[in-house]
């Protein structure tokens, strides 16, 4: 197998430069002084294990105008990700073992980023008939979820959790009570009432989390709560974890950096589910991340075509595409502003999500997979939609000056970005 090396890498910010040696898809070790067939220049960037994202939407199969496996995984590579979990709301829904296998094979052929598909908890994500947990597990599904098709039937969720537990799978839930959410397109509060837009109260999320935590206790099965948005949700999870429940949760970059006041711009790029909430909620989410109540970051990369996001706020679909911007956004908004350390941020993108998903922790030591990202922490440039690999070019941060861009991403020892 070809040996390669990356020179000029820092192992911590401000550290001295080192050379990392790779053999095929595996790390050989640091500063080994070996003959290599190719060398890349890390240009003094910070070497990190490639990130893991437990929650992305790749829209494949079925919605190629929004995203494809190729565009979505290229975006993941450009964002520094080495492993992503795709949601099953494809067309048709990813609810069969063959569909899971097909996605894995197609992603492997692209060689841009590891894809571990999530499978639907119920057939067609319709909330009526459970999918085959053990067969989906055997096919390599990362977890089971009906995601945005919220689990309105609590009894069915209970049996789904029990079946998933027996199959050794995690169940992830988009915790929102549809009857409380109603037609809400943004957080219900002062801003929605000023704008005359239908509101989605925080209680839609917290009431559903309270129910699901009870079902989690009833079954003893692993439950993962997707994208928390409200302060009270963090409190509920904190108490549940203290009580020993097998629950984990995630938060998105947009809920950590934006609030409902963004909607004053009346632009559907800010329309997302669950909605952007208040500054108090944002602060509580940050505090929850820092104290470990929230286990990891998840992009909830939800691409839609520009024409779809250019519609009015009632007609436009929910979702923000952000996979390429997660690190520079959070490095600029959290680390550089003192709200989190660089080590915390990288932990929320690497060991945090891997622990949630039951994947082995990745380091940059000998014998580990050669999946890594080199961050140029000094690079500063505006978000240029034309440079994005995702097909979803309209987003909240277009034109925003961000610092800390991924300079080089390697997946299985091959350069996939940079």
């Amino acid at each position, binding site marked *: 197998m070809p040996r390669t090396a990356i020179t000029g890498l820092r192992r911590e910010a401000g550290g001295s430069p080192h050379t990392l040696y790779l053999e095929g898809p595996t790390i050989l070790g640091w500063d080994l002084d070996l003959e290599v067939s190719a060398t890349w220049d890390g240009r003094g960037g910070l070497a990190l294990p490639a990130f893991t994202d437990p929650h992305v939407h790749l829209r494949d199969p079925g919605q190629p105008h929004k995203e494809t496996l190729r565009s979505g995984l290229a975006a993941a590579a450009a964002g520094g990700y080495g492993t992503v979990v795709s949601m099953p709301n494809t067309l048709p829904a990813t609810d069969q073992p063959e569909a899971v296998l097909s996605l894995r094979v197609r992603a492997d052929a692209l060689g841009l980023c590891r894809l571990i598909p999530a499978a639907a908890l119920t057939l067609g994500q319709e909330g009526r008939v459970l999918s085959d947990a053990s067969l989906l597990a055997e096919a390599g599904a990362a977890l089971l979820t009906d995601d945005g098709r919220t689990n309105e039937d609590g009894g069915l969720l209970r049996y789904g959790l029990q079946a998933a537990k027996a199959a050794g799978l995690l169940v992830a839930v988009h915790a929102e009570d549809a009857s409380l959410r109603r037609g809400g397109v943004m957080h219900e*509060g002062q801003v929605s*009432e000023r704008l*005359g*837009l239908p509101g989605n109260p925080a209680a839609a999320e917290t009431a559903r989390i309270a129910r699901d935590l009870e079902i989690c206790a009833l079954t003893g099965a692993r439950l993962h709560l997707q994208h928390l948005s409200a302060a009270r949700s963090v409190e509920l999870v904190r108490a549940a974890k203290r009580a020993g429940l097998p629950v984990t949760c995630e938060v998105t970059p947009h809920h950590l950096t934006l609030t409902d006041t963004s909607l004053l711009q009346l632009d559907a790029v800010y329309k997302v589910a669950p909605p952007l909430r208040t500054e108090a909620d944002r602060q509580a989410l940050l505090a929850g991340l820092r104290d470990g109540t929230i286990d990891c970051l998840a992009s909830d990369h939800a691409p839609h075509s520009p024409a779809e996001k250019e519609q*009015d706020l*009632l007609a436009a679909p929910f979702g923000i595409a952000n996979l390429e911007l997660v690190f520079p956004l959070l490095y600029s908004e959290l680390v550089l502003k003192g709200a989190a350390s660089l080590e915390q941020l990288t932990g929320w993108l690497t060991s945090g999500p891997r622990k949630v998903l039951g994947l082995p922790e990745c380091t940059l030591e000998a014998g580990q997979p050669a999946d890594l990202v080199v961050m140029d922490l000094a690079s500063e440039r505006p978000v240029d939609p034309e440079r994005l690999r995702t097909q979803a070019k309209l987003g909240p941060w277009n034109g925003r000056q961000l610092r800390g861009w991924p300079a080089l991403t390697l997946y299985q020892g091959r350069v996939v970005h940079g």
Partner: protein
Amino acid sequence: MRDLLDFAGWSKPDAEDLFATADVMAEVLRRPVKRVPALQGFTVCTAFFENSTRTRTSFELAARRMSADVVSFAAGTSSLAKGESLRDTVETLVAMGVDLIVVRHSASGAAHLVRRFAGVPVINGGDGARAHPTQALLDAYTLRAHWGELSGKRVVILGDVLHSRVARSNLELLPLLGAKVVLCGPANLLPQSLSGPNLEVSPDLDSALDGADAVMALRVQRERLEGGLGVSLPEYAARYQLNRSRLDRAGPRALLLHPGPMNRDVEISSDLAGDPRSCVLEQVHAGLAIRMAVLYHLLVGKKERAA
């Protein structure tokens, strides 16, 4: 003023400037030949993605009184029904050479969206439950004609406040002019967390009416009352319908406003038809003068006076 979408960034002098122009327009409307050449050569487009005969008629008449050409675009019979996007529709209208677009749309924020793609001045003729600025301007103009000054006055806005763009634009504009606004209606048709200077929210009509200088009864859609939100038509009529004895509570000099069209015996009782306190027809007249003034300010500029 480049567009009129809402009252964000407005101050009292902005409104006063507009009212001064509207005074000139009102004088034009009293002439035997109600037409001036002020907007000759300009083309005004009314793009109504939601039906509204009276608002559209008022804008079109206002434009014609100033000799503008008027084209109207009705979504129901147009390309929108064929799946064309709002952006493509707006860009097509602008490519045809229209100089200003009046937009009406069922989604809050749609007027902002139109402005983003238009490149010509845009007037919000009502977007969802968010704003209907020319309605609030004509309401304030009507009150000003009676009072001279809105400072210190108490205006009750009564009915389905939650879904009303008329209420939202009035609660932006009237406090700006010094008036106090009291929002009143059934609990589930009132905003739950709205607050602000010179703004009060009350589900109790009798106490809201005490000392009121004007009452604005909003149109209540029967569908809302039949939508299962806990207030039936009989309950609404019993608790919130504006009738003579309730208006008497506000006093003999209180003014009655309604944005129209009225649902008699729903939000307003028949015994108030022809009541001398009613300003409903004055509002319609003020609407013409205000819309002429807005069109003039946006197309010509406020410095030069019309006529």
